[in-house]
């Protein structure tokens, strides 16, 4: 069993990201979509910290960016959940397929 290297982390990240993409494109529940987006964020975070650990171990650049991403993701989640709440109040539902009233 080889030692855990950067490729493992990248593979994990890719898997999680693809799961996130798949979830985001397929789930009808807006909350689930948001959760899928969170998955994608975290996949990216994994990539960032992995590169930081293996490529530039002497600096903490990747970790800092990851921390920023987490903060931004939290803000995004707040705004998105607020929108979802409002949509729910208006439409009595949060099915994203139904939320197409902003199209032409």
């Amino acid at each position, binding site marked *: 069993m080889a030692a855990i290297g950067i490729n493992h982390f990248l593979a994990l990240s890719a898997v999680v990201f693809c799961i996130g993409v798949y979830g*985001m*494109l397929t789930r009808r529940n807006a909350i689930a*979509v948001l959760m899928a987006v969170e998955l994608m964020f975290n996949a990216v975070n994994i990539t960032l910290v992995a590169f930081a650990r293996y490529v530039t171990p002497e600096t903490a650049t990747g970790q800092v960016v990851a921390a920023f991403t987490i903060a931004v993701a939290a803000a995004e989640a707040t705004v998105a959940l607020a929108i979802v709440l409002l949509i729910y109040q208006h439409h009595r539902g949060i099915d*994203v397929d139904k*939320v197409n*009233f*902003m*199209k*032409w």
Partner: protein
Amino acid sequence: MLENAWLIPVFPLIAMVAIMLVTHRNRMLSAGLSIAAMSIAFIWSWAIALTVWNNPEAQRFSFEWLDLGPSMHIPLGIQIDGLTAMMLIVVSTVALMVNIYSVGYMHDDPLFSRYFAYLSLFGMAMLTLVLADNYFLMFVSWELVGLASYLLIGFWFEKQSASDAGKKAFITTRLGDLGFLIGLLMLYAAVGSLAFKDVNGAVQNGTLTGGYLTVAALCLFAGAVGKSAQVPLHVWLPDAMEGPTPVSALIHAATMVVAGVYLVARSLILFGVAQDASMVVAWIGIITSLMAATIGLVQNDIKRVLAYSTVSQLGYMIMALGLGGFTASMFHLMTHAFFKALLFLGAGSVIHAVHTNDIREMGGLHSKMKITSWTFLIAALAIAGVPPLSGFWSKDEIVAASAGHPVFMALTLLVAFMTAFYMFRLYFLTFTGTPRDHHRSDHAHESPLTMTGPLMFLAFLSIVSGFVGMPWLHHGFSSVVYIGEPHHAEFHLSTAIIATSVGLSGIALAYLMYYKRAIDPEKIAASVKGIYTTLYNKYYFDEAYDVLFIRPYYVVCDAWFWFDKTIVDGMVNGAGDLGMFWSRVNAWFDETFVDGAVNGVGIVTRAFGLTVRHLQTGRVQNYAFVVFATMVIIWLLQ
């Protein structure tokens, strides 16, 4: 007093402006203004005349009016000499009398005030005309009197014949005025000045001579022919009788129509050198005189007889001037002004009483209107040349002036005979015998004092005005009104006897025919029917002019009208139609192609948008899919 004489015409001018602008609502005030202004002119003129009587030397007062550099400057000014003084007296006296007379005659006219404004305008213009010291000012006032004449002939403009007569007078005299203007330009071109003094000087020192002078003099004479109603431009004067009768007395008998004679008299030094022109003047004068007298024999309109008499007497004056009889002509001008104005005013008084112009409807008016009848008789005697009335003295001088030319003398006497005849035909038919129209006669009555007063005053002048020219006077008319050297007429007993007997025989013939009825005029008329009709129709002058000038003129006008209507209008309308057509083509092009292009952009954009908008599903997941798919594609491609 003399240097301020330019103020004389200013008073009537002020009166005219005041009447027009201020007092026109107050009839009597308007008339009063006009009369007051003319009274000042009247008194002033007589004062000037008295001064000039003692010192006939010409005096000139001028000022620079237009200065356009050394080559062109026109001074205006007045010249006072015997001729001017005499004209001033004639104009202001007759004008004042007519003004007063008109108060009675025009009493019921709704345009009373305007009438007096016109009279004042005329007074102003005529007084300026006789005062002018140069042809330029003379021409200006000449046109102004023409305007006043036009306005007053057509005063009763609601009558078609009156407004036509006004136009006829204006246009006919304008023909002569054209000649006058050309003459002035010729004189100015040759002399460089239009002052009488300078022009006469140029003639006397020989700078202005030969054919050029003859043509210039004839051009001036053309103006006189128009204004003084000489053949062939005499046709307007009889028609001018459409105006109110006092106007006929003032303008078309005593003053304005003698402006032409005055013009020739003023220019007589020119004519003295240009002998050919003089002969033309003399012949035109005698032909006019003869022609008008013969027409006057058979007319039935009281005013027309007087009008033809005026034309005839003007011909006398013109002829005398052509023969060099300056003093004789001017003397006759003065006496004629008085007795002809009197005749017209008397006729006006008759017309006022019987409301007709036709002497066939009058008769027996003597007992009804004594003053009118007596004054008319005095004037008729004067014009017939019965001694010692004024016409006798002046007509004698005219006959004497023609003495050197047998043809002229014979014709002059013939005219004198006819004048006496038609005047007394008029008198007998109007005032004596039995009334031929009882209805009119019964309502006839003597005119008010405003009318008979001027009649009596003019009758007085008709009697005495000849005495100033009596040949025995040491200091008389001829020592004041002359050119060159004073030329004192000698009294030829034989001439006087011949002239008087000719006049008396005319009266006698009229007496036999129209008073005694010893000779039946109808029979004579029937025996020379052709001549009678010709005379009655005034030698068919109007008809001839109608055929020779007016109809061809209309034809030409019609032709031009057709040309205008068809060709010019056609071109204009064609251009318009072409423009319209081209505009339509342009519009079609614009609407089809330009608009098409513009709209096409819109349509294409819209169609594209309509097509492409289906991509915008509004489903967030679709968008996200596109994003990811694109990224994958880009990744695969690189």
